[in-house]
Structure formats: structure tokens, C-alpha cells
């Protein structure tokens, strides 16, 4: 590898990263352009570029997007939300608690943005009915979505990438991350109570309007609903057993998606139209960009540097990765960050010979929970605030920061204690 290859790879990577951060150009457009430059400057051949793409991550995302696209047509999520709001007798604070838990659980099984897209519309209908400020309702949902998504392999794209690269399966994530996420959710709900409970006052008449809502009207297709529930259940069962069955997680998701498309009889063009192709191409381009750095040896140099800084001590690496990921992910897109960190951590493992498994958990916790820090920290935050803006309510950067950043710090402190106690 020539020196100019190294300089070009680093130059392209840094320049593209800067443009992504600046948000001046669409992130997918600039990332694909950057990846094409690596080919143009012969830093990677086409075959090498393709070999850098993690098709397990891409396949898992496509499979789950298809399953969700079909399932959301049934109205099941709206049914559950209305049923839950009535079950807590339309009491605002209880609605926040039950919706936050529902969001966290749904986010653990689905993509965070998808969960937000499903839960916020019904939440806004409820706050309209109650004639109350929607922000104390929506903000906890955004935070819960990012927290819940951290709990499983399929909950958040960084986890999918980490699981695929590190060979960690669904059960590994359940065993290592779900318990601490449950603890974090309990603490965060307590914080929500301190923050929002006093501001929620409604009249008996408005509460009764919630009780008059009919959840059955939300079900659009009960036959499709049954099919979706069966396939969703089998797919989650498949994730639980995929390591024992010898399947990649993407295989499970794609089989589930293929069977659901077959039995649902929903037009495939309609389903595929709802796939977030821009996000998928962004992933593909990032894998190639980071692959370029790997190919020219830069990742190895960075890993060596990190080992020198931490003097090869796992505790320092753990804390550095957890807090570094959290702080950076609170202001940056966590997907390119995790895409860069994965080969770096792998390389640190190869160079030091130590068991780096705890570092993967530190990266997952930091990158996913860090997204709660600011309004631009995670896609769910941006989508949630965008939906509020469409509804005529502005969730400003500062108002979000006032709640999001301290809660993010609390969750990272809890994660630090957890990692230090259980992994050292």
C-alpha cells in the first residue's frame, strides 16, 4: 500500500465525516460519494469494497423493515395504545408510564424510529383529546425508545452492527444488556415522575373522552393481524434460537419477512416502497469507508494508540469507550461512529490478546444511550420533534437538552457501575 493511499483514505474519511456532521448535504448522498472516491483512487477494488459490507446487518434491517411495514397496516399498535390508555382510566401520568414501558419494550423488538412512528401519532391523538401540552408525553417516549432499543440485538442499528461484527447473538444481548436496561428504565420513570407529574392536570370531562375511545375501531385487518402476530412471534423465537440453530440473525429476519409477504398477500411493491433505502445505502457506504481505513492500516495504528493511552488496562478502555461513545453519540450520528469503532475494538483485541467482550457492551450502552443527550443525538429524537413541529408544538434544542442530557448522564453512570461491577 502506497503512502498516498493512506493519506487519501484518511482525507476522504475525515472530509466525508465532517460533511455528515455539518448536515449540509444528505448523509446518504455524501457517504455514497465518499465510498465511490475510494474506488476512484484505487484504495479499494470493487471486490474489496463489496467484501467490506456487512450483509448480516443489511439483511437484518431489511427483514425487520418488511415485517414492520406489513404489521403496521393491521392497526395493532394503535389498538394496544388505546386499550392501555383506557386501562389506566385516562390518567395522564399513568398514560406516560404505560406508554413509556410500551415504547421501551417495542423498541427492544423493533427499530427505534419505527416505534416512535407508531406510538407518537396515537399519543398526539390522546393529548389532543385531553387538550394538554403533548411535550411531557412525547419526550419520555423518545427517551424510552432509545433506552429500550439498547436492550436487544435488534433494538438499535448499532447493536445489530456490533452483534454481527463480534459474533454476539440475540441471547448474548438479552443476558448482558436487558437486565441493566430494565434497571435504567425504572430509574428514568422515577425521574419522569419528578419532572412532569405536577404539570399534568386535566378535567374529569376530558378524561372521560379517553374512556369513550374504542380500541376495536383501530383494527384495520384482523386476519392480517393474526398472521403478523404469528410470524412476529416465530421471528422473535428464531432470534432467541438462532445461535443454537446455526443461523445468522439476518437469515431469521429475512425468512420471517419472506413468509409474511407470501401469506399476507400485501402487494410487494407497496411493502418495498416503505423500506428505508436511504438508510440502508448509508450503511453500505459507511462499511466501505471504514473498510478503506482498515485496508490502509489506519485502524491498526489507532488501536495501537488507544492501547498506549489506556496502557492496555481493560478498566480504562471500558470507561473511555463507554463515556466517549456516549458523549460523541449525543451530538453525532451513532451509526458512523459505531462503524468506525468496531474494527478499532477488534484490532485492539488482536493486538492485546485480551477478552474484549466487555468493550462491546460498553460500546453498545454508550452509543445507544448517548443518543438521548441532545435533540440531534438519535434519529428517534429528530423524528419525534419533527412530528411535534408538524403538530404545531416546538420541542427546542434547549428544552430537549434540559431533560435529555441529565437523563443521559444518569443512564451512563448506572451503566458504568454495572460494567465495573460485573465485567472486571
Amino acid at each position, binding site marked *: 500500500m502506497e503512502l498516498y493511499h493512506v493519506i487519501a483514505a484518511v482525507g476522504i474519511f475525515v472530509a466525508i465525516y465532517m460533511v455528515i456532521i455539518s448536515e449540509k448535504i444528505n448523509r446518504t448522498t455524501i457517504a455514497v460519494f465518499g465510498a465511490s472516491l475510494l474506488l476512484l483512487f484505487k484504495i479499494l477494488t470493487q471486490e474489496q469494497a463489496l467484501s467490506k459490507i456487512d450483509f448480516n446487518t443489511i439483511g437484518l434491517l431489511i427483514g425487520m423493515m418488511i415485517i414492520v411495514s406489513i404489521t403496521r397496516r393491521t392497526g395493532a399498535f394503535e389498538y394496544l395504545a388505546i386499550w392501555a390508555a383506557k386501562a389506566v382510566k385516562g390518567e395522564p401520568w399513568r398514560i406516560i408510564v404505560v406508554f413509556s414501558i410500551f415504547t421501551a419494550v417495542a423498541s427492544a423488538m423493533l427499530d427505534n424510529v419505527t416505534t416512535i412512528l407508531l406510538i*407518537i401519532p396515537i399519543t398526539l391523538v390522546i393529548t389532543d383529546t385531553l387538550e394538554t401540552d403533548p411535550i411531557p408525553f412525547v419526550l419520555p417516549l423518545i427517551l424510552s425508545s432509545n433506552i429500550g432499543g439498547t436492550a436487544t440485538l435488534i433494538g438499535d442499528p448499532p447493536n445489530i452492527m456490533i452483534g454481527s461484527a463480534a459474533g454476539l447473538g440475540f441471547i448474548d444481548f438479552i443476558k448482558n444488556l436487558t437486565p441493566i436496561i430494565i434497571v435504567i428504565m425504572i430509574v428514568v420513570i422515577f425521574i419522569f415522575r419528578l419532572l412532569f407529574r405536577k404539570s399534568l392536570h386535566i378535567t374529569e370531562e376530558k378524561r372521560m373522552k379517553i374512556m369513550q375511545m374504542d380500541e376495536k375501531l383501530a383494527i384495520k385487518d384482523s386476519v392480517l393481524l393474526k398472521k403478523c402476530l404469528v410470524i412476529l412471534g416465530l421471528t422473535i423465537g428464531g432470534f432467541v434460537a438462532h445461535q443454537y440453530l446455526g443461523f445468522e440473525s439476518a437469515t431469521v429476519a429475512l425468512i420471517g419477512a419472506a413468509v409474511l409477504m407470501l401469506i399476507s398477500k400485501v402487494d410487494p411493491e407497496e411493502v418495498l416502497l416503505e423500506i428505508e433505502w436511504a438508510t440502508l445505502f448509508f450503511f453500505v457506504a459507511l462499511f466501505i469507508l471504514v473498510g478503506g481505513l482498515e485496508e490502509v492500516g489506519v485502524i491498526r495504528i489507532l488501536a495501537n494508540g488507544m492501547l498506549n493511552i489506556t496502557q492496555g488496562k481493560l478498566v480504562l478502555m471500558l470507561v473511555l469507550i463507554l463515556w466517549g461513545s456516549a458523549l460523541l453519540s449525543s451530538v453525532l450520528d451513532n451509526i458512523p461512529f459505531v462503524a468506525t469503532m468496531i474494527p478499532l475494538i477488534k484490532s485492539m483485541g488482536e493486538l492485546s490478546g485480551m477478552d474484549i467482550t466487555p468493550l462491546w457492551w460498553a460500546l453498545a450502552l454508550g452509543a445507544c444511550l448517548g443518543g438521548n443527550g441532545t435533540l440531534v443525538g438519535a*434519529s428517534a429524537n429528530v*423524528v419525534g420533534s419533527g412530528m411535534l413541529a408538524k403538530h404545531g408544538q416546538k420541542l427546542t434544542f434547549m428544552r430537549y437538552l434540559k431533560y435529555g442530557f441529565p437523563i443521559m448522564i444518569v443512564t451512563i453512570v448506572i451503566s458504568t457501575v454495572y460494567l465495573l461491577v460485573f465485567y472486571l
Partner: protein
Amino acid sequence: MRNIINSAEVSQHTIKLQQMGAKVQVINSTLCYVHFNIEGLDLEYVYNINYNGNYFLERIQPYPLAIEEFDTEHDLVKLIQSDVNKFRNAMKSRHVDRFISIAKQINKTFTTFEDTFLNYNIPTEKVDKIYKKILALEFEIDMIREIAKGIELEDPEDN
């Protein structure tokens, strides 16, 4: 991101409409906006190509008019072309401005009538009176068609 947020907004409307008792079917479609400028007159149409391949055409300028539903793109373009030809010819008339203001007034009158009918208890004799006046107006228009000379326009098919 905008598309994602819009789709969530559709969900919100859907839930509200369902709670009102409606059955809501969300169909992906493409909306086309067409603009002509004929000697200073803005002639604008919107049509929507839906999932089943049907086209719903509406004229929005110089005055709104729901036109019709078409099965083929050929029929749609043919109708727009015929409409444009008629307006192009109408622009030669000294009465074009009055014609457009009368058409706008008819639209406005209909809106006022609907608003009155839906928001007020109207005595039967007043309803009868309005009906008779409308019939008289229709008769007047029919009479004009009887005595006025027809305009021969090129068939768009011939182009």
C-alpha cells in the same frame, strides 16, 4: 426524514377518523401539478395517479372544477389538451374576463349555499325559491346555447 414524518401524520389523522367511525384506506399515489400560461391566464390542473392506475383530474385555476376519473394516461392528456385549446380560444373573446369572474362567482355562490343549508334551518319556501332561480339560470344558459354559434376546435387526436 420528511416522508417518514408525513407518514406518521397520516397515521394520526387515520386514528382520529377511525374514532369518528370512518373506514380509512391509505393509498400511495403520485400527485402531478400542471401549469400553463395562456396569454397571461394561469391554467392549472392537479391529477393523482393512484395505486390502481386510475387518474383523478381537477382543474384548480382559473377556477376550481373537479373534472373526472380516467383509466388511461391517454384519456387524461387528451382532456387536458382539449381544455387548454378551449381556453386558448376563449382568450380571443372580449368577454373572457367576465366569463371567468362569473364562473368564480358560481363557485362562491355554491359554497355560500352549502354553508347556509348546513348551518341554518331554512324555510321550505326559501328552498323552493332558490331552486326555481337555479332552474331559471340553467334555462338561460340553455337558451344561449340554442342561439349562439358553436365553436369548431381541433380534435387533440389530430395533432
